[in-house]
């Protein structure tokens, strides 16, 4: 029982990071019908921006405990802002010129952008793994044989908060509604006066900022960064988006949490060697039995 609870807690924490990244895949797919393979790299870049921001703000590994919560928050915000700009640049430079082109062209471009960013990161940050600064000092709490750290609680809380903020934004604001309109029918949204290019750009910005938030949370938990880290995590987050129903925001959140929990249950009850494999098993099962995902609907014909 305590193994179960322990893995559940850890799974929810990892899963909420997947969920944050999955949101970016799903939002971009929802508006453009494009799988943004460079999204995992935006996550990675967000991580590095956080690392540099921490040092810039005076982080000192020997006196980590003196790094203020205010500064830690600033690290998060700077990483989100930096990644938002990167995401918007990717859209502007790589995808927008291909709007209206056959679907294969932006897909191949996305893979190209992903490789390009990985290589730029190797050049800029070096291929050696770096340690993410401990901008939050870890405290352990014990409950009925289950260890919870303040960092895991923080990860879960920040993720949930960001997801709720996104839900509110998409449901209640004009821009959010414009996003939904674009995702259902782009020409019709334009006819309503929606500046589609601007809204699409904003979609990339928000998705990227959320991925960067995921990056910082990941760094807090795993502490190791390297330029290729976006590969596997990006893939898992993408699978989370597919599991929830790609294009569906709540689906991405649920998909991320489910995959995180499934991974840690596998690690806890079978073997940590199968931890990564379970995600792909889930992908195969969902593609076989419910290709539209848990919350997805079969997409209607556009006019």
């Amino acid at each position, binding site marked *: 029982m305590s193994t179960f609870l322990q893995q559940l807690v850890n799974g929810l924490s990892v899963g909420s990071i997947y969920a944050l990244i999955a949101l970016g895949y799903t939002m971009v797919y929802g508006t453009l019908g494009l799988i943004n393979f460079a999204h995992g790299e935006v996550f990675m870049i967000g991580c590095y921006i956080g690392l540099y921001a921490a040092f810039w703000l005076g982080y000192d590994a020997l006196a980590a405990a003196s790094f203020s919560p205010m500064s830690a928050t600033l690290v998060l915000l700077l990483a989100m802002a930096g990644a938002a700009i990167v995401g918007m640049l990717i859209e502007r430079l790589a995808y927008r010129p291909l709007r209206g082109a056959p679907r294969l062209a932006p897909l191949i471009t996305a893979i190209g952008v992903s490789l390009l960013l990985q290589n730029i990161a190797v050049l800029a940050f070096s291929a050696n793994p770096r340690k993410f600064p401990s901008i939050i000092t870890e405290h352990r709490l014990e409950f009925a044989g289950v260890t919870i750290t303040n960092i895991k609680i923080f990860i879960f809380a920040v993720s949930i908060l960001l997801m709720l903020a996104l839900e509110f934004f998409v449901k209640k604001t004009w821009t959010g509604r414009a996003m939904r*309109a674009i995702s259902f029918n782009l*020409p*019709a949204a334009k006819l309503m006066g929606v500046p589609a290019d601007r809204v699409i750009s904003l979609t990339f910005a928000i998705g990227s900022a959320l991925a960067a938030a995921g990056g910082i949370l990941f760094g807090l938990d795993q502490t190791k960064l390297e330029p290729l880290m976006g590969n596997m995590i990006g893939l898992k987050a993408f699978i989370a988006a597919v599991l929830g129903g790609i294009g569906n925001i709540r689906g991405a959140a649920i998909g991320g949490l489910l995959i995180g929990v499934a991974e840690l249950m596998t690690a806890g009850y079978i073997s940590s060697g199968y931890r990564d494999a379970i995600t792909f098993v889930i992908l195969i099962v969902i593609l076989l039995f419910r290709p539209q995902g848990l919350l997805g609907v079969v997409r209607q014909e556009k006019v």
Partner: protein
Amino acid sequence: MTDALRVTDLKVNYGGIQAVKGISLTVGRGEIVALIGANGAGKTSTLKAIVRLIASQGQIDFFGATAGGRATHQIAALGVSLVPEGRAIFGNMSVRENLEMGAFLHRDALERKHHMERVFALFPRLAERLKQDGNTLSGGEQQMLAIGRAMMSQPKLLLLDEPSLGLAPKLVGEIFAAIRVIAADGLSILLVEQNTRLALKTAGRAYVLVTGEVALSGNAEDLRDDPRIQSAYLGGDTTRSNG
């Protein structure tokens, strides 16, 4: 006074095929003008080109302002609203949200409420289905919603693409009654229809499009009596022709 819409030498190409071959037409202020023609004549292409959903050549002016260099959403801001063929309702949104999307450029809540009341007066059925999702509506209700949504943008020029398409005669009657009410408020309307009889009854003037060219134009009344129209589009005495 400048026309609500002036189209000069409009051409639309799809790959190597020219679907619209240099047509010119005008819609005066407060006028209902019909654009009729058989399936594939180029009517929808013309409307899409006018609001710049597709690329075209030629000159387009709204109320004396050129459309050149403007994107679709900027044309909407000029007070031009297209009710597209097939309605293009946001199926993932409620009827209310669809109507609110129509007011995307008019955010004042009070004003929006006022315009929504007017839409309900036009189509009382929409008021009964406010919470329902767009894709659960019947075809006729979707057409009402599409027109209502366009009216929420407070247009000065309304472009309607086959509002009667696929609807039962009774519903067609309701929709066209609403169009006449809207027109009586002084709105300028370009009405695309395959239902020639109905179009010529509703409009003051009409253009007949044949394979991308204006073959005939004039007063709707005159066209109704024109033998060429009678044989080609009105099919003697049958009520409906598909061209």
